[in-house]
């Protein structure tokens, strides 16, 4: 009989930090905050992952990339668990990731500005200011929203009135 020494969960977290988001490869899945738990059930490693947007096509690719990374590190007994609650929020995106997003040309989320539906609209109509989103290129906050939807589910289309460049904003959810 042989005894296999199981990798420490801390090591697993370090390996997962090497798995990039397939659509925004400058940030990792751990920086996005979508890895919710790493634990052992007996000698089986369980990694709990939460989806960003429920229809995001990257979700299946992310699962595959996590599995590939852990297989490559020698993990044989593995289960990925989809965890829906608490639902993912952009508040979980780490500070490092926000800086990487900015240098990649994507304005990071301004926390606390997720839409609450008609209530948010009513607030807007009565003059409440939207998020102060800084242009990732020139840093100006003289920016405006073009559309609350963008090139991927997690982004909105914005433009900078100072340097006139359009840019993506990683919207709050």
């Amino acid at each position, binding site marked *: 009989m042989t005894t296999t020494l199981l990798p420490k969960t801390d090591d697993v977290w370090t390996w997962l930090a090497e798995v990039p988001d397939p659509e925004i490869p400058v940030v990792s899945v751990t920086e996005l905050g979508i890895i919710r738990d790493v634990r052992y059930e007996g000698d*089986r490693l369980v990694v709990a992952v939460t*989806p960003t*947007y*429920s*229809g*995001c*096509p990257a979700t299946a690719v992310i*699962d595959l990339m996590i*599995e590939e990374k852990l297989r490559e590190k020698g993990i*044989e*007994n*593995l*289960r*990925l*668990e*989809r*965890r*829906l*609650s*608490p*639902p993912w*929020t952009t508040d979980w995106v780490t500070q490092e990731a926000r800086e990487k997003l900015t240098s990649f040309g994507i304005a990071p989320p301004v926390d606390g500005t*997720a*839409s*609450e*539906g*008609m209530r*948010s*609209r009513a607030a807007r109509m009565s003059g409440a200011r939207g998020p102060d989103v800084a242009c990732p290129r020139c840093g100006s906050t003289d920016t405006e929203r*073009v*559309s*609350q*939807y*963008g*090139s991927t*589910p997690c982004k909105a*289309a914005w433009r900078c009135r100072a340097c006139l460049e359009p840019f993506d904003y990683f*919207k709050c*959810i």
Partner: protein
Amino acid sequence: MSGEKTAVTEMRADPFVNDEAIRRVFFEWLCRMGDNALILGHRTSEWCGHGPVLEEDIALANTALDLIGHTQMWLGLAGEVEGKGRDADDLAYLRDAMKFHNLLLVELPKGDMAVTIMREFLFDAYHHLLLSWLAEHSKSPRVAEIAAKALKEVSYHIDRASDIVVRLGDGTEESHRRMQDALDLLWPYTGEMFIGDDVDATLTGAGIAPDLGGLQGKWEQNVRSILDEATLKAPEPGGFAHLGGKQGRHTEHLGFILAEMQFLQRAYPGASW
């Protein structure tokens, strides 16, 4: 070593998922939730590549994508509750029209942009209220967590749809006329959202879902406030309501959607890529 394939599974305990007493009606109710999202998602996706401007095209495609995501969660849970080994894809691709139990509102043709936006607005206003209740009050933890997830996305849907209803309603003479025509066309299909049947009554009794009639007042209030702002004339309350979708009695339009959506799995059973 274990050569076992990695499984992606849900682990949250929910007594209702294996409750023989309500299995059939719970499955039915989950299919209704999933079918509304699936059929509206499919209808909305028909604009992909055809939107009047790029931003609208992208917004509609993103909305459709969210709805397809909700479908996977609702129909996935429906399959689990049914316990016959069917997954979300089996339910989406291999049921016939009479087994689809979506609201008639969501299967109507996409029409022009006015019909598409007005339909989305009327449905979103209901969807947002329903999901809010489910996320906060449902005694089924699985239902509550799906609703909480979907609610975040639907908040953006209703936010955007309300904006555009106002912009088009209080827009040009033509956009106003088209929006009023869309409202007059769709309004008789909204009553079905609030008229419950035995399935709804059982789920309400179990504390899983709200009393649908109880949502109507708030819905009307929300919808009328936006329609007023949009200078559109809302029909009087309590008029005629088209019914039957929730029980599988559909308009002629659903079959055509399914023919397109299900073709591949029907022609090449089990095909995957």
